[in-house]
């Protein structure tokens, strides 16, 4: 009974804040309501017998990824999206496509009759972190190592992409602020050009 109640509350919260993410014009509000969605989904993870993944979701997603988003939103100082007036035909089509995807998935679900499947009791084996880690470091060890490599590559790529360099200048980590000097005067020219 209480499980159903928790599910309904957090499912409603997730859907509501997801709508806010998509519909709000100010990216700061969108980002903050994504936090609400992610935390609600983390609660559902716990409800499904995956407390470790839920904790990880809160730590990694809301703690690292969304904070990164907020940093960038505030760094770039993006205001509200200008209202371009009419929604284009493409956008209307896209909205219809989204609704179609939902209907298709819902229909597929009903067709497969998953609703008639009854869950067995939550086994301690599924919740146990020891079993999870055992499988992670035995069967998926190579994948685990590759993901570590991927993160390293991503860190290097992000640093190189976001570093401020002038044409012809090599990226230098010794003088991180040297490139900042007299960078601003070139801005108005670039703005007019556009």
């Amino acid at each position, binding site marked *: 009974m209480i499980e159903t109640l928790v599910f309904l509350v957090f499912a409603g919260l997730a859907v509501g804040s997801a709508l806010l993410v998509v519909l709000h014009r100010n990216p700061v509000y969108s980002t903050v309501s994504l936090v609400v969605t992610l935390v609600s989904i983390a609660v559902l993870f716990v409800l499904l017998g995956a407390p470790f993944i839920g904790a990880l979701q809160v730590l990694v997603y809301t703690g690292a990824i969304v904070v990164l988003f907020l940093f960038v939103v505030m760094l770039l100082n993006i205001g509200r999206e200008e209202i371009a007036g009419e929604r284009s035909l493409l956008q209307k089509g896209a909205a219809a496509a*989204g609704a179609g995807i939902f209907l298709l998935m819902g229909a597929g679900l009903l067709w497969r009759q998953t609703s008639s499947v009854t869950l067995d009791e939550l086994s301690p084996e599924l919740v146990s972190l020891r079993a999870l880690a055992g*499988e992670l470091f035995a069967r998926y060890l190579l994948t685990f190592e590759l993901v570590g490599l991927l993160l390293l590559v991503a860190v290097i790529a992000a640093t190189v992409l976001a570093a401020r360099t002038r044409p012809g200048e090599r990226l230098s980590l010794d003088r991180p602020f040297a490139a900042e000097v007299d960078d601003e005067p070139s801005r108005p020219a670039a703005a007019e050009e556009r």
Partner: protein
Amino acid sequence: MVPISWYLLLAALLFAIGTVGALTRRNGITIFLSIELMLNSVNLTLIAYSRLLGDHTGQLVVLFVLAVAAAEAAVGLALFIAVFRHRRTIDLNRVNLLRW
């Protein structure tokens, strides 16, 4: 006990909301947020099936999706910063250098 299909329906709904957001918005950051939303709804599906089948594989895949999402967010946001530096906007209707 909550039937597993409720979780799957919720995930489908979140995925559809994310799709609509990614396709209709023009602000690069918001599109990125919608993609994160879609990733998360898929994670919910994986966890739900992991619960249904009593198997750890779904949870482990979610673990990897989490790491890939982190890498994707880092690189994507760095790209946005680089684009913003040149064009002073991340409105994707105006960042159309590679568009035919």
